[in-house]
C-alpha cells in the first residue's frame, strides 16, 4: 500500500480538508488507532477486506445492542475491530494489551521507585 502525499500542490485556492468538511479526528487516540490499522495493513498483517469485514461486523454488533442514547462510537468500533483481528491472528493477544495497559497505569507510581 502506498499513501502518497501530494502536499506541495494543495495550497492556494484549494481548501485544506478541515475547511471543506469537519475535524478528521475528535481525539488523538482516534488518529492513532486509525494509523495503526493502516500501518499493519501496509506491513501485510491483514488484507483491507479482512479489516473492513471485521469493522462492519463490529459496527453491526453495536447497532444491535448499545446503551440507549449512546453516540455512535465509530473509532471505538475501529479499535475493537483491530484488537479482535490481531487477537484472532495471534499477532497480539487481548491479554497482552490489557497487561500493557495495566503496566502503563502503574507507571507514575512505579517510575521513581527505588527498591
Amino acid at each position, binding site marked *: 500500500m502506498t499513501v502518497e502525499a501530494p502536499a506541495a500542490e494543495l495550497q492556494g485556492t484549494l481548501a485544506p480538508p478541515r475547511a*471543506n468538511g469537519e475535524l478528521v479526528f475528535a*481525539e488523538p*487516540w482516534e488518529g*492513532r488507532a486509525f494509523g495503526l490499522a493502516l500501518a499493519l495493513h501496509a506491513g501485510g498483517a491483514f488484507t483491507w477486506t479482512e479489516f473492513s469485514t471485521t469493522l462492519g461486523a463490529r459496527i453491526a454488533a453495536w447497532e444491535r445492542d448499545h446503551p440507549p442514547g449512546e453516540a455512535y462510537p465509530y473509532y471505538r468500533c475501529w479499535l475493537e475491530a483491530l484488537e479482535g483481528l490481531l487477537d484472532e491472528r495471534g499477532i497480539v493477544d*487481548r491479554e497482552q494489551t490489557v497487561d500493557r*495497559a*495495566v503496566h502503563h497505569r502503574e507507571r507514575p507510581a512505579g517510575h521513581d521507585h527505588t527498591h
Partner: protein
Amino acid sequence: MATETHTEETFSPAERTEALEDILTERGLVDPKVLAGLIRNFEENVGPMNGAKVVAHAWVDPEYRARLLADGRAAAEELGFKGAQGEAIIALENTDTVHNVVVCTLCSCYPWPLLGLPPSWYKDPAYRARAVREPRRVLAEFGLELGEGVEVKVWDSTAEVRYLVLPQRPAGTESLSEEELAALVTRDAMVGIATVPAPGS
C-alpha cells in the same frame, strides 16, 4: 497492589490504543515514524480537494472525463491520487436526468485518496439505512430538492468498490480556470448529497 480483574473494558480506548501501539512498535510491526507520517498525511493532505481536482479536470478535458468514467482508479492515479481504499474507484456521472448518491450500508467505505476520511453523517446509522430506502427524502433533508424528471440512483460501497460522484458543471463558469473550478467542488457534491452551485449563487 490489590488484585483486580482487568479486562479491555477497564481501560479507555486511548489507553488501549497506547498499549497496542507500544506492543506493535516493540515487535517491529509498526514503525513510529511511518505511523506518524500516515496520520499526518490524512490530517493535512488527503481530503476532498483531491477529488475536486479530478472533477474540475474532467469538466475541462473531455478525454480525461471519458477516461475517468471508464476507469476511475486509473484516472485518479493520473493526477497522483492513490492509496488505501482507492483500489477500485467508479466515477458516477450526474446528468440532467440522473442524480447519483453514494452510501456504505455496511460500515463506512469511502474513496479515501479522493475525499479523505468520511464525515460523521456518512458514518451515521440513520444515513446508511435511509439513503437506500428513501433517498429523495434524505436528499431533501440535506437541502437538495430534485425535480420529478430526475432519477435518483443510490450506490452502496463495498470494501472492494468505492464511488465518486462526478457532479454537473454549473452554468456561468465558462471563463473560470481549472483551479477556480476545483475550488467550487464540495465534498458533499462528490458524495451526491448536493450539487455544485454556480459561483456567487
